Each structure stands twice: as C-alpha cells, then as structure tokens.
C-alpha cells in the first residue's frame, strides 16, 4: 500500500508524517550540518553529535565515552570550568548532554539571538578541552555515584545489564554505557584525552540546529565558529567485533530482596535500520507495535485480557543503531503467576502470530500509531532535532528520515509474519527473570 492509498480518518488531513523542510550541508573541514526551521516560538535547539558512543570504548576502558561527556563541562583554554554553564544560564538557556551506545551529544536551548554565542562555546570545546587531575578525580566520583544511583540500587537495571551481556556475547553492546564499576574506577585523565583526540573532530561531528532560524543564517554562523577548527583528515573508524548468529536460548535470573514487583523480559538479537535489508527493520517496527502496543497489542489482549496472567505488557525495538540490535518484549505477572508459566504464554502469543499472521486492521492500527508518533515528535523542537541527530550518527541520511513514513506504509501483513518467524526465534533469545529473593 502506498502513502496515497492509505486510509485516513480525515481526507483533508496533511500527508501522514510529512516533516519540515530540512537542509543538510558540510563545512570545508568536514562537519556535517542539518538545519530544521521551526518558527513557532523564538527559540533554537542547538545540538552537536559525535559519531562515537560506549560501544567505541577501548577494551578494558568501559565507560570512557560517558566519562568524557561529563568532563566536557570542565573548561577549555578560553573558558575555565563553570564558565560554559554560567554563560548558557546567563543567556537563559538550558543545556545537557547524553551518551548512548553509538553516539554522544550535547545540546542547548536558547532564545534565537543567542545561537551564535552557544555555537562559539561548543566549537571551542571541540578542540580546546583542558583537563587536570584536580577536575578529573572528583568527576570520577560523580560517575561512580551515578552508577550507584542508576544500577547498584536498582535490581531491574542490574537485570537489564545481565540480559544485554547475555544477548551480545561478543559485540560491545553487551557492555553498559556507563561502564563496569571496576573499570570506571581506573579511568583517568590520559584515557579521556586519548578518546577525545580520536573522536572529537569536525569530520566525526554533526551539528543539528532546529528552531526559529534559516539555513543561511546557520551556515554563516557555523563557518564563523566551527569553521575555524582545522580538519584532521579522515573521520575516525569504529572498530567493533560483530555479533555472530547465536544458537542457544539463554536465561538469566536475578533475585534480590528489594524486588517488590517481579517481571519477565525476552530480548531478541535483530537487525537495526543500518544493518537490515530494505524493508526488514520497518517490518520489525510494525511487529513490535502489534505485539507490544499499550492496551491494544497482542500481548495485552492475550496475557492481560484473555488469560489474565499479567497486569501489564509491552515491547520496544532499539532500531536506530550502527550494528545488530535488539527487540525486547516484557510482561509483569499477576500475583501468584510463575514467571516460567508467563513465559510460556508469551511465547505462545508469538507462535500464534507466526502461524496465523496478522489481520489488516491491527496492521493498519500499528502503522497509524508509528506514523502518528513521528508527527507528534514534530510538535517539539528537541525531539525533532534528536530524530535527525540519532539517524545521521548511526549511518542514516536526512532522506531516510523523510522517507520513513512511506516505508512504514509499505509493510505488509506477510512482511510482519515473516519478520516474527525469522527474528523472534528461541535461538536468538535471552529471557530475563526478576524475582524477589525471599530467603534474604
């Protein structure tokens, strides 16, 4: 089915998922620039994305990409520590940064007249970062504290880490973004600077500006700021061991006295948009919706409504990734239901879909939902900028973003059934059990 034939409740509605007019160009030093005009409010979102994430951490140095993200706020030869944040705050701006498996990004939101100022600051720290042991040491404590807060006190997060490391037996996606505790403890100034020099270059970065600006203005400002950074030659190469096809079903179980609410998850090794054959990742996206959608998905209908073995179900697909990725389905049992039994019911719901396929109505609903989500994302400057940044940082193009809604429309019921048969296979699966440790 093509976009034009897609049934729509309101014939006068705009084309589903059609995004704004986006410009994409490169500076002479190799920096890629994306401009997304949005004139609804006099604010701009400025983001710089680096094509490196935790999966690029050297062996034995897990957590360095994330640690460096923290250290990027520690000052440069032009602006001492704290000045960056002070200036952004003085301009009334908001800022933050995040590290994922495949990329690291920094962003600020400011009134549009201050765009040049934040570009100046961000360009400065792309090449002039200064690190001393006096700032590195306390920041390591901050990261250790962050790990304690996010993982060490949370059995659910610990199970998540165990499922990931069982699912990725060889690829670094199996290592947590924040790093393992014992390796974070040993990270130092030299590790951070080495990583910085390798990856923080104009050739490896993508500038995304969304907001009340035009491409020409952004181009002129970018040339005056980022344009001054000299090219380093080629973009750095990501060297990652690839995950083989796995053959064994694996189960990890975590028992902790702190658990009040047991849960079950099934993780599957699946292609990402970057590694998939044409149409394959789109089918997995639709499949995830059909199974995992809140209140209308198959899992909800089978496990919550019909069999009454679960109080909640869901699913997610980490589709935007450089290498092979994962799809996760989960269910929260009703009191008294054993996780083994819940897993059987969940697997039966998948088998039913593989055997009998999906009906046109649920297919259409899943597509509508997926495309609607992208339209809603366009309501927010920041989420719009994130879609472009994450796609480009994982090997996609601006065209891929624009084409995505029509690619989703093309997914057929048979594509979904085939995707389920091929990828939701026990040999590609790790199940994770979170249970209360009653003995402790």
């Amino acid at each position, binding site marked *: 089915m093509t976009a034009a034939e897609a049934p729509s409740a309101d014939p006068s509605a705009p084309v589903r998922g059609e995004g704004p007019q986006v410009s994409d160009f490169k500076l002479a030093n190799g920096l890629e620039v994306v401009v997304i005009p949005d004139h609804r409010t006099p604010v701009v979102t400025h983001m710089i994305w680096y094509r490196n994430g935790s999966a690029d951490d050297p062996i034995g140095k897990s957590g360095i990409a994330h640690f460096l993200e923290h250290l990027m706020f520690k000052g440069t030869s032009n602006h001492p520590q704290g000045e960056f944040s002070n200036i952004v705050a003085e301009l009334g701006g908001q800022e933050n940064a995040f590290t994922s498996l495949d990329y690291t990004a920094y962003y600020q939101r400011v009134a549009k007249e201050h765009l040049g100022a934040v570009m100046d600051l961000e360009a400065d720290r792309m090449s002039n970062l200064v690190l001393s042991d006096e700032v590195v040491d306390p920041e390591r404590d901050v*990261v250790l504290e962050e790990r304690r807060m996010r993982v060490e*006190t949370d059995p659910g997060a610990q199970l998540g880490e165990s499922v990931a490391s069982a699912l990725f037996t060889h690829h670094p996606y199996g290592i947590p973004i924040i790093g393992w505790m014992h390796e974070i403890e040993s990270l130092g100034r030299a590790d951070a600077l080495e990583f910085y020099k390798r990856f923080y270059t104009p050739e490896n970065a993508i500038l995304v500006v969304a907001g009340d600006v035009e491409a020409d203005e952004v181009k002129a400002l970018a040339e005056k700021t980022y344009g001054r950074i000299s090219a380093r030659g080629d973009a750095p190469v990501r060297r990652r061991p690839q995950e083989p096809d796995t053959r064994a079903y694996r189960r990890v179980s975590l028992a902790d006295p702190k658990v009040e609410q047991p849960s079950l998850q099934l993780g599957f090794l699946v292609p990402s948009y970057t590694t998939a054959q044409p149409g394959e990742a789109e089918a997995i996206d639709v499949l995830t919706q059909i199974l995992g959608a809140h209140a209308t998905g198959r899992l909800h209908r089978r496990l919550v409504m019909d069999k009454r073995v679960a109080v909640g179900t869901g699913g997610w697909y980490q589709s935007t990734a450089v290498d092979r990725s994962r799809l996760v389905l989960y269910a929260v049992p009703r009191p008294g239901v054993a996780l083994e039994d819940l897993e059987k019911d969940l697997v039966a719901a998948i088998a039913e879909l593989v055997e009998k396929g999906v009906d046109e109505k649920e297919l259409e609903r899943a597509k509508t939902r997926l495309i609607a989500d992208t339209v809603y994302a366009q309501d927010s400057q920041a989420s719009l900028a994130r879609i472009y940044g994450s796609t480009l940082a994982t090997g996609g193009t601006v065209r891929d973003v624009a084409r995505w809604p029509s690619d989703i429309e093309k997914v057929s019921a048979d594509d979904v059934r085939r995707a389920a048969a091929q990828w939701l296979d026990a040999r590609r699966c790790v199940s994770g059990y979170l249970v209360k440790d009653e003995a402790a």
Partner: protein
Amino acid sequence: MNAPSRSKDLKIGAPREEAVRITTLPNGLRVVTETIPALATASLGVWIGAGTRHEREGEQGLAHLLEHMAFKGTRRRSALDIVAEIEAVGGDLNAETSVERTSYYVRLLGEDVPLALDILSDILTEPAFDKGELKREKGVVLQEIGACEDTPDEVVFDMFMETAYGGAPIGRRILGTPKTVRAQTPESMRTFLDRQYRGPDMVVAAAGAVDHDAVVEEASRRFASIKGEQPGAPVEGVYAGGDERKIRKLEQAHMVLGFAGCSFHSPDHYALHVFSNLLGGGMSSRLFQEIREKRGLCYEIYSFHQPFSDTGTFAIYGGTGEDKLGEFMPVMLDCLREAAERPTDEEVARAKQQIKVSLLTGLESSARRAEQMARHVLAFGRVLPREEIVAAIDAITLDDVKRVARTMLASAPTVTAVGPVRKLMDPGRIAAHLGSAA
C-alpha cells in the same frame, strides 16, 4: 574567541494571548481554547480540580484509581473500543492524577476534535465501572505501588510529603495503600466522581488546530449532565515539618531536606522560584557546582519549589554513598545558608533569565499549551498572559530573594532519608547548623 553577546533583553515573541478564548457553560464548566495556526495536531483534555487531597478517610488512592478506571469502559464503549477508536485516528489518550488535579487528555492528528470530546465526556459522565475491570485495574495499581517501593528516590519523596504535612490529606501518597486500593468498589468510585467532578472545578482545554465555538457547542451538549454546585473545600494544607528515616540496605542514601514554601497565589512565589533556581536549578547553580562539580559528592542534586493553592514546599534532593554522607550534609547546609544570606545580583539576573526562557520553550507543542491554560484557569480563573508573568519576574529584586529565603529557612525543616543513612546528621544538629541563618 568572540565574547558571547550577553544582552539582557528577551524577546517574548508575538503575543498569542489574543488567540485564547474562554467560555463558561451554565454548569460552571469552563472551555478554554487557543487556535495555533501552522499546527497539524490538536490537543484536548478535561482538567478537574480534584486530586489526592480531596480524598476522605478510607478513600486513599481513589482519585488515581478512578483515573485508571475511566478508560475501562462506559455504557456505550468497552475498554478496547475506547483505545481502538482513538488509535484508529492516530490519537493518543492519557491521564494523570496529582495532589490537586486530575486530567484526561487526547492528542490527535488533524481535526478529530469532536471524537475526542465524545470519548472524554463519555468516560466522565457514563463510566461503567465493571466489576471485573475494576478487579484487574486494582492489580495494575498494586503493581504500581510495588514498583514505587522498588524505587528509593520515589519512596523518599512520598515520605517527604507525608512528613512535611504531618500525615494530612495533601501529603498522602497518590497511589494510596494496598489496603485502601483493595477496599474500593464501583459505589465508592461513583460517590467520589459525583462529589468532586463538578462544573465549576472542571476545565475543557484545547490547543492547536481547534475552533473555539465548535468546542463550546460540543462541550455544552456533552457535559450538560455534570452538576453545577461547587464541591466543598479540602482540608487545609498546613506545613508541619519533621524527620523520618528508613534504614535500608542500599548502595546509595537518598535524602530530601525541605521547608515551608508558599502558595501560587502568594506574591512571593516567583521570588522563591528564583531562589530555587540559583540554589539548585541547573548546571550553573550553587549546589551543582559546589557539591557535584567541585567535590564529586553526588550525581544528582537539585532544589525545587512546589506551590499548591493554599500552601507550598521548598525542597532539596540529593543522593550519595554511605562513605560520603558525613561530608555531604554539612556542605549542603552551608551552601543553602550562604545562598540565602548572600545571593549575588548576577545570580539573580541569571535565574530570572532562565525562568523567562523556560516559559517560552516547549510552548510550540499543543499539548503543553493546553495543559498550561487549563492549570491557569483552574488556579486563577484566566490564562495569565506571558507578558504579565515576565513583568512579575522582572520586578523581583535581590532583597526579595533574600527575604523569601530567610522566611523559608525560619520554618521547621523536614528531613526524609532512605538507604544506609545511619550516619546522617541528627535532626538537632541540622536545625542548629541552620539556626544562624534564620
């Protein structure tokens, strides 16, 4: 390197308030809309001035359970019909319960506003409260309570509200307790709905691709059965203060330190907001710079002011390891005292600027705008123009900030902590440490 421009004037953009229209229906229900051109989506919802604090004895958790049950079927629609109808048009249906408000809202593509009003009015005026669905939904809420117990930084906030208000309804847990949730029946839900969901306390708000007159016409027909008499006022919220600690075997200690804040009707509430911003509002704030950046004592630390209709609380949250607990508390208290006694002009100017920009950001989204208008109408009976808020923030002086901070610190502290907190400073020493500031 160019010095960044530091212009202090902020352009607020073309005033949009003229696009805002309010109509009051015969039963007191108000309809507020803003038509935003160039927006393909619309957001529409019903906001009710009833929440956790309106629950009576034995009803704890009822406001929230009711919100859950609203989607579980009406006389005309099954639970699945409700979501399927909204999904068929690419919509998104959601709800929220807080201390003083409950809201039900829909985001839609294009202009399916009549369908949204049909469904929202249906779930609020003709809910089925089917026994089987209620049983299942109680299971969902009990699971939420369990999940919340698994999250110490949520537990510490629940304890904070309970302790700050001495167990009064305003400080009770939104989810209720397993016992009170299990005790609810279709009858108790109908009683609460009938008692609290009254016209003068309800607002239908819509923003985006919407037409005011059409929304008013549709709403007046569909919400005609809602009663017009104002419900009784809830128990007054009186800040008490206190100390409550739960020793648990965790990797991290979570703490909230708080004081009496003020109501959003108080003229001081913006000044307190400014103080919170400079103390712990972002990466340039004192707590962030001193406790995290300089000393590496924690990952997360922030302060916030939470105003209600008749009271408010000011609080600081921090989480740290057991070994650092000894250093953490005195440093935090020093930071707080120093900020209250000697805030600088520069900090106040920066905080004001940040608050003003945060007023603008996010307003490109119809959902945020509808929510903001509804909140304003429930609280002030009108939508506050952005210029008026900006003028109020501009008018705040350094002395205002010092004065409100001093008043706040003079109230009895509330300390709540969860985790390995045996070594946490005792209440007497905390009060003594703060004493010289008051």
